[in-house]
């Protein structure tokens, strides 16, 4: 009798060398087959941290590295920590592993900027890949007809077992535990490290969520602190934000030119469906960072001066400078600056940009407020659950803080060029409080 596909194991365990987890172990045939699909392999061509490599040159790691890492963390949890516990349903094991491996499958190149400009959502594409006519879907369907839908539901957080969802997506989940460590490793910063082994050992499955034994509180404090530090030191680095601003503006400009029926010297075939707002899965899967960089290089030679200039800035890392900006006191100043930029022939839509902390896809730890986000719960010796910030003064101190941040980005080199509009540019520099030297 042949073994069911869902239970099939490889004859020999496969291992991938990994700088964060040392080894990633694969025994399940399903997982091995998913890794080999072209949709999963596409993640090799998309950097995990988008434009961060322009600030931290080591940050070249891919979405594939991270996806394997999340899979490995879940594998350790379900095989080493949860196995044989009465609150854990062993029949959910393969589903958890597949959802972990595929949770970022729909990410595109520089997806944060792309999603903003073209009104896309990578989670919708994750679902489309899992449920559509793809190699990933073929593999998942061999487990059972309903299995692709289940995997998609776990990733979309609409599966009916919240415990499985919280393993992959909650305030202390495998996704965050991997990316914090991986991003710290590849950027080379000394933040982002915490004792994951300890956290994994004290995770406990409960009816609707995964909780932490109270004896592991200090390891979790470390995790929350590293999340906080990575946010300000890496994810929200002002130089990375500058490159992100330029990238977003390039896409805006290309879209605007297309709407104006501008004739591109190089037909942007890969972008046409995005410009028209009709992106199919096939179009989407063709995109990766190499394709985008190809167009940016081509657009350096375009007739349109704005597109040409922005692309040249991105390719050659000639980024915008910034000043701190307080919208509550300075929004009138912004109106004045917009007017002066126009007078100086610098379109403020592209050359004067406010970037706010809310523009970033990362968040802090938040205790539950009106039940919107499930907080991290500690399992006390009495069996009672207590929210983390009520037990930990350290977490309480940083989770209550509402630090927000706004910066105003501008092209200093163009403002310093006094061959045109000298007086106006001097006025701009004075308002920005920027020295001409």
């Amino acid at each position, binding site marked *: 009798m042949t073994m069911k596909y869902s239970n099939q194991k490889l004859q020999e365990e496969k291992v991938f060398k990994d700088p964060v987890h040392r080894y990633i172990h694969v025994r399940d045939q399903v997982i091995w087959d998913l890794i080999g699909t072209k949709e999963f392999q596409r993640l090799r061509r998309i950097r995990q941290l988008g434009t961060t490599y322009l600030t931290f040159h080591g940050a070249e790691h891919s979405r594939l590295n991270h996806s394997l890492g999340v899979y490995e963390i879940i594998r350790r949890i379900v095989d080493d920590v949860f196995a044989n516990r009465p609150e854990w349903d062993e029949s959910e094991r393969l589903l958890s592993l597949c959802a972990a491996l595929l949770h970022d499958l729909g990410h595109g190149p520089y997806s944060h900027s792309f999603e903003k400009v073209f009104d896309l959502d990578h989670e919708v594409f994750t679902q489309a890949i899992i449920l559509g006519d793809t190699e990933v879907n073929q593999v998942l369907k061999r487990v059972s007809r309903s299995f692709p839908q289940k995997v998609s539901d776990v990733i979309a957080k609409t599966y009916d077992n919240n415990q499985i969802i919280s393993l992959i997506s909650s305030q202390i989940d495998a996704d965050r535990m991997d990316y914090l460590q991986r991003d710290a490793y590849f950027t080379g910063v000394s933040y982002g490290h915490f004792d994951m082994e300890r956290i994994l050992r004290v995770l406990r499955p409960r009816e609707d969520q995964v909780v932490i034994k109270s004896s592991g509180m200090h390891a979790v404090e470390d995790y929350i602190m590293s999340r906080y530090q990575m946010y300000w030191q890496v994810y929200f680095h002002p130089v990375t934000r500058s490159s992100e601003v330029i990238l977003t503006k390039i896409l805006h400009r290309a879209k605007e030119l297309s709407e104006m029926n501008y004739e591109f010297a190089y037909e942007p075939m890969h972008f046409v469906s995005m410009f028209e707002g009709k992106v199919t899965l096939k179009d989407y899967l063709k995109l990766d960072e190499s394709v985008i960089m190809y167009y940016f290089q081509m657009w350096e030679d375009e007739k349109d001066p704005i597109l040409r200039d922005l692309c040249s800035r991105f390719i050659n890392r000639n980024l915008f400078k910034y000043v701190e900006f307080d919208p509550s006191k300075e929004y009138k100043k*912004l109106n004045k600056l917009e007017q002066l930029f126009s007078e100086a022939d610098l379109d403020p839509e592209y050359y004067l940009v406010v970037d706010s*902390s809310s523009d970033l896809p990362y968040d802090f730890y938040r205790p539950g407020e009106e039940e919107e986000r499930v907080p991290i719960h500690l399992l006390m010796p009495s069996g009672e659950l207590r929210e983390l910030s009520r037990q930990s003064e350290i977490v309480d101190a940083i989770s209550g803080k509402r630090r927000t941040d706004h910066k105003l980005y501008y092209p200093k080199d163009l403002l310093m060029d006094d061959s045109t509009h000298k007086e106006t540019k001097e006025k701009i520099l004075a308002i920005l409080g920027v020295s001409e030297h």
Partner: protein
Amino acid sequence: MMKDHARLMQAFSALGEIVGRKKLQKIIFIAKKHNYAFHEKYQFHFFGPYSEELTLRVEELCNMGFINEYNEKKSGYYQYRYEVTEEGQAFLDAQNEAVSEKLEPFLKNLNEQSSRFLELVSTLLYFDSLEGDSQIEKVKKVKAKQNYTDKELDEALTYIKQLNQLV
């Protein structure tokens, strides 16, 4: 410039006073689903559609002093109440953003509903790509703990039809 913040300020101004973060989250989601220009990204959370971006933007507006957030202790949790400040109104007046005349009555209508009801309406809308019974089944599954009755579900579906006429 700061268009997304300005649009939220327009919503706060139209709503007058809004009680509860959950209610605010659901109102903006429902308005967005009806093609009003809110760009905050939503995901499904344990209690329905939720936007981290919206939470952050509201925090920024509070820090800027454009809206006041009052915190009231209810049984076992805190409830938040929002109002536009004078500075916030001045910021709004300085913007050149055109507002649809229909936005205010649309938001006010939503604000008159209970938070529980809006949670149901927004969840139904979140799954509106599913057809007929599958949509209802999905909502019943993900909202099992809220124990919505068939009557509430019917009312929510009728309300969604009414909302379509307000756009």
